[in-house]
């Protein structure tokens, strides 16, 4: 395997990541998951076409497949971590709270005092209203076909693992 696989694969990933950071700093897209998917899919295609136009494209279909697979693997690595940054993971946030407290220790009530009673769920409900998983008419939420497909997917997945539905 040629070291070029690593160079080009990393180049595709880093370019996609940079474009994502620039776009997000200007304005976070309304459908951010779709935006991420598009960026990480389109950038390598555009880069490959550009490199081909200037005769710098990697040679050989297999090498290109290796590069794209490396890019895909690094992309799913990043995209799977993105929700923790986008939505604030309460678990990580608790660790940050305790880590920044005066004695590096807090009681349950001190931790709870930092959270509005509904903020953690409201943020997710608002996200849901913007996503393709649910439709909101007035004050009422219903699942879309995509939402029902996600519910079914996770139900099958959890039963395959022999586990009940997660607690959230």
């Amino acid at each position, binding site marked *: 395997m040629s070291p070029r696989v690593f160079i080009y694969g990393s180049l595709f990933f880093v370019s996609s990541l940079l474009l994502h950071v620039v776009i997000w700093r200007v304005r976070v897209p309304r459908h951010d998951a779709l935006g991420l998917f598009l960026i990480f899919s389109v950038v390598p295609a555009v880069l490959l076409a550009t490199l081909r136009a200037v005769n710098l494209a990697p040679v050989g279909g297999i090498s290109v497949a290796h590069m794209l697979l*490396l890019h895909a693997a690094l992309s799913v690595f990043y995209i799977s971590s993105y929700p923790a940054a986008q939505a*604030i993971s309460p678990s990580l946030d608790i660790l940050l709270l305790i880590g920044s407290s005066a004695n590096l220790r807090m009681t349950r009530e001190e931790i709870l005092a930092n959270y509005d009673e509904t903020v953690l*769920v409201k943020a997710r409900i608002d996200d849901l209203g913007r996503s393709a998983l649910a439709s909101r008419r007035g004050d009422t939420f219903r699942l879309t076909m995509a939402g029902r497909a996600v519910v079914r997917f996770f139900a099958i997945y959890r039963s395959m693992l022999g586990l009940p539905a997660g607690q959230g």
Partner: protein
Amino acid sequence: MGRDIRMICILVCSPFLIAAVHAAWSRIDRSGLPQTVAARSIILGYLPAAIILWEAVFASAPFTADSALAAFYCFVVYSSFSYAYFHLFNMSETARRIRIINEIHRAGAMRYEQLTAMYRSRDIIELRLNRLVAMKELRLHDGCYAMNGRLLYLAALFISRWRRLIGFREMRETRTGGRPQ
């Protein structure tokens, strides 16, 4: 089929291998927290993946610098997919959004107030405190929670900085919904 194509096929299918190992291991190891079981399954999954890759790709050729690079490539791709698989599992276990859509699915339709009444910040935080203690990231002593591990805390610091870099609001503002603390 050439070695390279076999390697690509095995790596592309590797998330299914991880899921299969996880499905088997979660029926054997019922003692731990679901996330711990998932993490153990992922670590165990390296063994069958390595055996399959060795038999299908590496065993038939002499070991050279190229093979070493290819082995490193397989490690990076497989590890990235494993990490993403862990997040997929974690999403099924802990994601608020997944729980909310499950509840809407069960009810058919739900009003905003019903959703916020069903799932309060207190419940979310208490569930996570118990999980963090079970994962040994926190320890509970004399009614106080203190840091026990560093790994998740360092991840939290990194994600918090990354969040600011990509232009999201400070965590503190989001915790209180903008209300000053």
